[in-house]
């Protein structure tokens, strides 16, 4: 049976030397990140180069993605959130394109590694912290002190609020990572059932149509999950940024 974990292995493509005993290399993960970034840039530069009044295909996709992210930010973080548009748009497009590229057979899924999703989630978390303290100073701590709570349970509530706040980057990163990892492993396992059953003669070939149908259905589901997880990642980024913009709410 094919190893379902094999697809997530990191290989060094171009060794770049070592820093402090750690090997630094251009890996397949870095290659696919570069592919994702180049793909996004090509889409957006190509989409905005025509500047037609009636958009063509590329321009439509670029405009749709812009409007989708702009609507998401406006509905969750309001007008003031629009100053974070480049940040949210970059994150959304990176996650979306990385998820979709990973669905192509024989490719590497960048977002199936927790180090990538954790880095993105921590970037959001630290942005919220830095911007919150920059904008509101110590009033940012109001986020942890809900109003209208009796004073004798306030310390407990503050503890819980702080823990809830600290758990954000974890749930933010684990959700995307776990969904991508589990989806790809499931696909691989069901696909390997096809070859295993197919080797059992005529009945095996009939039997193999069942996992084949499953793989087709799972692929459709994975495409949905790829879009949905990028959307969830973006909308949570907006919700967290909203706390930095208006910590009183």
């Amino acid at each position, binding site marked *: 049976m094919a190893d379902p974990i094999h697809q997530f292995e990191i290989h060094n493509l171009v060794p770049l030397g070592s820093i402090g005993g750690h090997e630094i290399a251009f890996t397949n993960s870095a290659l696919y990140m570069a592919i994702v970034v180049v793909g996004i840039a090509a889409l957006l530069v190509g989409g905005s180069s025509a500047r037609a009044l009636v958009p063509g295909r590329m321009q439509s996709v670029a405009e749709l993605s812009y409007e989708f992210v702009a609507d998401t930010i406006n509905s969750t973080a309001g007008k003031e959130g629009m100053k974070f548009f480049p940040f949210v748009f970059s994150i959304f497009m990176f996650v979306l394109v990385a998820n979709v590229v990973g669905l192509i057979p024989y490719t590497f899924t960048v977002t199936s590694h927790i180090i990538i999703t954790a880095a993105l989630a921590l970037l959001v978390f630290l942005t919220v912290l830095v911007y919150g303290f920059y904008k509101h100073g110590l009033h940012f701590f*109001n*986020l*942890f*002190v*809900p*109003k*209208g709570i009796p004073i004798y349970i306030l310390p*407990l509530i503050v*503890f*819980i*609020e702080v*823990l*809830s*706040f*600290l*758990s*954000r980057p*974890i*749930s933010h990163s*684990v*959700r995307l990572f*776990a*969904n991508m990892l589990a989806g790809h492993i499931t696909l691989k396992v069901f696909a390997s059932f096809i070859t295993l059953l197919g080797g059992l003669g005529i009945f095996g070939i009939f039997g193999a149509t069942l996992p084949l149908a499953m793989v087709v259905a799972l692929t459709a589901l994975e495409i949905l999950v790829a*879009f*949905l*997880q990028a*959307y*969830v990642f973006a*909308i*949570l980024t907006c919700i967290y940024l909203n*706390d930095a913009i208006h*910590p*009183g*709410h």
Partner: protein
Amino acid sequence: MAADTGDDSGNGNRSAEEAALSARLKRLGERLDQHKGPSRPAEAPSGSKSDPSALARGFRLSTELVAGVLVGAFIGWALDKWLGTSPWGMIVFLLLGFAAGVINVMRAAGVSSGPGITR
């Protein structure tokens, strides 16, 4: 209806007329509701099925609780290791983390609003 009304009985007749009018309005409203009734439930599920935010909210719920518990457990474990208070830090912070996880889930589900309900 208004043909046999005299000036002297106008007051009582007008109230009867209003009653008839309100009854007709009520019947019309009922018929409108009946007319709308079957179409509205048929529309609502298809609208909510294609709504990405509902699916997105569903995906959010799965990890919110786990994240709260994990953070609580980690902080408790770290405090125990640092202060040597094992196992009390773990017990207290695991419970607090569970509470934080439940709050996360409630917020993700939209049951409770965000931190700090009023300014």
